[in-house]
């Protein structure tokens, strides 16, 4: 029996999962299987290795997005630290509890990153505002995608760590408000307000940075 069998099914009317060309994020079909998880909890080294390998891309994705633009040199170290803490703490994870393994691991990862950021302030180039990119109609999909990715990265980099954590956990890893609140030691109302502010700021940045035809999807000039 798989662990996810006991989990509530995702809302079919909900938004599609983010593109996961690089590893999984979260979701019932992206959890490690129940047998492997239980063996890992009991300390089986092979199973523990499989759990680590399974969640490595997810942990890396979270750390990379939390550090992009401000502290990229620390990504690998933080990924390793988070996975190490996961290994050491997995014996206390309750597979019958309310949290999915991925949520539990993402919570540890988020706290590892935020603790690191508080200890070692980042060294951004600077925060000078950027002018709006010129509009270029007729550009092909590849260019648009690269432009969009770059602008999103730059926009997210303008957020403070707390807002960024809420946004990344919600938009990319699909954690619900309660899980985010638990991960960040906040109440749900604070999570919602931070998320709203983060989205507004990212939307404004994207509208400012992107050419018109790309900005339109974020509420920019059509």
């Amino acid at each position, binding site marked *: 029996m798989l662990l996810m069998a006991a989990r509530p099914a*995702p809302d079919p009317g909900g*938004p599609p999962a983010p593109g996961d060309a690089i*590893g999984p994020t979260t979701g019932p079909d992206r959890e490690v299987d129940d047998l492997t998880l239980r063996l890992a909890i*009991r300390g089986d080294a092979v199973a523990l290795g499989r759990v680590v*390998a399974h969640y490595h891309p997810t942990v890396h994705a979270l750390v990379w997005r939390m550090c992009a633009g401000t502290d990229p040199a620390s990504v690998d170290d933080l990924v390793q630290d988070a996975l190490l*803490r996961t290994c050491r703490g997995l014996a206390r994870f309750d597979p019958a509890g309310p949290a999915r393994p991925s949520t539990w691991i993402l919570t540890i990862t988020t706290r590892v990153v935020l603790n690191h950021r508080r200890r070692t302030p980042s060294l951004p180039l600077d925060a000078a505002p*950027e002018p709006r990119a010129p509009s270029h109609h007729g550009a092909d999909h*590849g*260019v648009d995608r690269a432009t969009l990715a*770059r602008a999103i990265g730059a926009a997210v980099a303008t957020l403070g760590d707390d807002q960024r954590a809420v946004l990344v956990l919600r938009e990319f890893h699909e954690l619900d408000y309660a899980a985010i609140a638990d991960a960040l030691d906040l109440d749900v109302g604070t999570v919602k307000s931070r998320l709203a502010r983060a989205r507004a700021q990212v939307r404004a940045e994207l509208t400012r940075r992107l050419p018109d035809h790309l900005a339109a999807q974020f509420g920019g000039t059509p």
Partner: protein
Amino acid sequence: MTTHDPDRLDLTAWQPPAPAPLDVAALVARAAETPAVASALEPGAASATARAPRRLLALAFALGAVAAAIATWLIVRGGAGSDGTTSTPTENVGAITPPPAAAAGPTPTPQNSEDDRGTGAAPPAPVHRAPATASDQLPPVSDATNPLAAACRASQGARATTLWKRHPDLRAAARTSCIGVVDAALDDAPSCDLPAELHDAAARAFDDGDYRSATVLYERALRCSRGDTSVPERLLLSACRADDRARARRYWRRFPKLQRPLAQACAGVVDAASAPTKPDCSRADALDRAGKEAFASGQYAEASSIYQQVLLCRPADPTIQKRALLIACRAKDRPTAQRLWAKYPAIRAQLLPTCTGVVDP
């Protein structure tokens, strides 16, 4: 888990590069070295405020344990005797040694263990593990459903190539992951039916600093997506960074518009590029902004390339010098970082932490 969220932003275009290969066996072994100790970073751990009283309690327990250990040692030492003979502690302390639990300090719970570590108390007994068997030797990273994809993601070229040959049924699902790892994956792909995947694989190789693979992949992407203006630039830049002189010369001639922006990157690889070619310095501010934006979005290799151009326009500007070196170090662009490190000694001290491991101080 997921609920409908009308305010949700579509940010899926921003994807991370493939993670660096992880030595899972070493990590698990390292985790096993230290017994399981609950951390305040784990979900469910109490906040710092709530932990404060427990911290005092843990400190008291630890001090008690230390006091008991000292008392035991003194008694044992006294019992060992004035006759100069020695005894092992276990010979004498049967009734005196505190129980193991007390000697080791309080048994940590998920709430108190972080505090225990802070006070130096010993951690609890290790989590019970099954007896070690031959199967405990971790196999290479595997995936229950598609070991070929797993081998490709782990960049295990030999294993992936073998699996590719033996299991044609796994190829379709693994092809995207295997481009750049298994040569046949690229050849096997129907011509130009995977432009996005090809572009992604090339971008991953480029971002990982694997410029040789990136050159091959971008060369293929060039044939498939002729309208994408970013491909020729990435291709020539990859060829120059890979020191692939033949391809670099070929594309240098083919894309004359790129000669100016990539002159710095290709100097020493393409003879014509070695003559310093100053970029259009009226665009220096725009280049500076583009470099910052590329940096902010995590495109460090591209940002490094852009700042080499800015530096040609403003060679005496210490801010530009610092940015160029900082980005080169973060991009792990060793040749550029080393060159700038040698050229601008005044900024070394500020960037030593960032550049350690990239340049040779």
